[in-house]
């Protein structure tokens, strides 16, 4: 069974050979972009070391601060979880543009359950459940009822954008919830003493959970039959069907996993602060969409997606510090840098090769 589905993936690779040239072009853009990023950071650090009082000095000090790494990791959590979820769904052939909505419902659900039960981890589970249910609805709508994936994904986002502040208003009389207790950070003795990288070993439990999820997702895609089924479902559903595996079931599983993962991200986001804020674009504030760019930039690889998330989140961490330090650029403008960078990255990476059958409904041939 798994042999046949592996063949299916092989066929898909053959079919995409025609696009090979485009692929290499993109690969270089991506590599060039990464190289330029690394080089400019290195140049900045050298300049900052030589002229500690200049702007470069300020930036270098911010970049090498352990607090920046800690903040970047903390900010990565919701985006990276959502990106992992997006990879599962999209690799299986379902474009889940509603990740933002999943983050919103889980952020609110986690606070609500934590507030009612008093348990942070029960709240976490509650958030994950909320997101999973919404993802299941999305799965039914797109897989069973063949709704257009993009429009249904937008609907998921807009429903969540209305539902979470609505529920908060009903329950708490305000779009913002009261604060609940947060869980303390977990530190690894000795290792947390390492300069800079010590931040990796003194972090909130959700950061460790993220490391585990990245590793596990990588393992699932690279080493398990289920991972091969997901790939085949997105690249060559006919072959998967021929091999006797139900495409619909694989897609249901993948979309629901994306709900679980995004839910972990959203729950971690709100429980980290102990509050859900639902004004305007809510506290999620575009993280779900940034997640989509992160996994496109990471080329659907869980580790790649995590690294590109760390790039966006690192930028966010730096801009937060710079807002406080004051470098002559107004606060409101520094705040939009992550969004600008997302557009620049997307323009440079250009068209990523989506899974062959992504966005298409698949009818079982009986």
């Amino acid at each position: 069974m798994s042999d046949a589905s592996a063949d299916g993936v092989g066929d898909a690779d053959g079919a995409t050979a025609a696009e090979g040239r485009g692929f290499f072009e993109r690969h270089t853009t991506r590599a060039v972009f990464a190289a330029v990023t690394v080089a400019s950071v290195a140049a900045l650090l050298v300049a900052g070391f030589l002229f500690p009082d200049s702007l470069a000095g300020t930036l270098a000090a911010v970049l090498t601060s352990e607090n920046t790494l800690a903040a970047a990791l903390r900010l990565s959590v919701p985006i990276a979880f959502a990106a992992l979820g997006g990879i599962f769904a999209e690799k299986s052939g379902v474009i889940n543009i509603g990740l933002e909505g999943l983050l919103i419902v889980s952020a609110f659900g986690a606070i609500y359950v934590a507030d009612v039960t008093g348990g942070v981890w029960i709240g976490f589970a509650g958030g994950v459940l909320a997101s999973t249910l919404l993802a299941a609805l999305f799965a039914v709508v797109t897989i069973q009822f063949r709704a257009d994936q993009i429009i249904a994904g937008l609907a998921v986002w807009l429903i969540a954008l209305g539902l979470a502040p609505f529920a908060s208003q009903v329950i708490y009389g305000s779009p913002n919830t009261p604060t609940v207790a947060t869980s303390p950070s977990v530190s690894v003795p000795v290792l947390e003493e390492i300069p800079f990288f010590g931040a990796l070993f003194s972090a909130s439990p959700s950061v460790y959970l993220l490391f585990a999820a990245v590793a596990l997702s990588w393992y699932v895609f690279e080493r398990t039959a289920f991972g091969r089924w997901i790939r085949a479902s997105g690249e060559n559903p006919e072959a998967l069907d021929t091999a006797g595996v139900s495409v619909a079931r694989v897609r249901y599983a993948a979309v629901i996993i994306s709900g679980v993962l995004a839910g972990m991200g959203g729950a971690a986001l709100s429980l980290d602060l102990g509050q859900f804020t639902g004004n305007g674009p809510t506290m999620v504030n575009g993280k779900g969409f940034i997640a989509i760019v992160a996994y496109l930039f990471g080329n659907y690889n869980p580790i790649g997606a995590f690294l590109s998330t760390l790039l966006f989140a690192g930028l966010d961490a730096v801009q937060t510090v710079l807002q406080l330090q004051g470098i002559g650029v107004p606060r409101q403008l520094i705040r939009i840098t992550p969004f600008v960078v997302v557009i620049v990255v997307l323009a440079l990476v250009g068209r990523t090769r989506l899974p062959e059958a992504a966005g298409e409904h698949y009818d079982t041939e009986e």
Partner: protein
Amino acid sequence: MSAADRLRDALDRLVEASATERILISTAALVLSVLLGAVLVLVAGRMTTCTAGEAVYYLGVGFCYDPVVVFDRLFLGALGDPLSGGWSPDGQFSVTLRETTLLLFTGLSVALAFRAGIFNIGTQGQMVVGALATAIGVLWASSFVSGTVGTVVLIPFGVLVGATFGGLYGAVPGMLKAYADANEVITTIMLNFIATGVALYLVSGVFKDPNSAANQTVPLPEFARFPAVLFGGRQDFSLVALAFGLLAIGALYYVLEHTAFGYDVRTSGVQPEAAEYGGVDAERTVVASLALSGALGGVAGAMYVMMVLGTFQTGIPSYGFDGITVSILAGNNPLGVGVAALLFGVLKSGTTVVQFATDVPPQLVGVLRGLVILFVAMPEFFRMLAKGLPGRGSRREAVATDGGAVTGGGVADDEGGEADE
């Protein structure tokens, strides 16, 4: 077939359904959303607290919110209570028409882009840019003219400024899509955030009204605002603006159906390969459609400034996102946008009435907005319903939708469990 082509194919399915079927689906989607909204109101009424006297009872169970009252207020209230006598156009009815006017423009903006096969989610940002440009431009120009002449000159000028800047802002994702293959869904959403951020910066700094605590521009003089013909009692709705909106419907319909550009737009939306083979310049069409779509969003912003607020203030309501619902409800047809804008205008205006009459939060309309889109997006669901097949399908939906917010303390599936399959 590339991903973008597939997205367009998906749009085709919406476009190609026959007109009658589409009207049926849109109506059914609206009815179903309102019914689900009623369920949501009931559930919300169980979750909040109220005195026994305020509660209503259905089947022996007490609820704090009464969906019958809610929907009575939502629809009759929005129309200014035509059944209770003493109806006057100055009341809530003018608010409904005001919302309709703004939704006409954002709806047309989204519809044009969708017809070209482009998901413009950035109407909101284009509206913000257009609104800010209008507020600043008209304020500047208002020092040169005054009186009736001022009104006659400044209003077309303000609309033009809004359209220009909205159009330029719309052209940005157009060029990114045409020449850098950047997905417009993401870029337009990011540009929404950027527009809001930059507007906040400008309005809290250089262009801030020194006499106001709020982040807003200096208010426009009275003669630079839309005149309130017939609706004298209210200053924030103008028949002139509505007439302008109806004109825009006709104009867009004509452009789409009877001009060479409209043909390019429609064929690019339906069959991009065939369009290109037939000599349509794909890149140019993408940029032009998004620019025109942005211009319509910018006009919505101009209307908001010159009709509703009289100034630019941060925190523009989400007319741009409502425009997505309006357009999808209308099957992306300009003529349909007129009807859909009125329906959604009633919903939006009614929500504020509901808020006064009951304690139901105004965010309800946000939920309805999403539900309508969800239902219109799944014609298959209604076809199955019509065949009388699975009645369980709809029930499952209702449970899952409510479950999104009303979470129990259940234990979530561990991801590891799924991975072992």
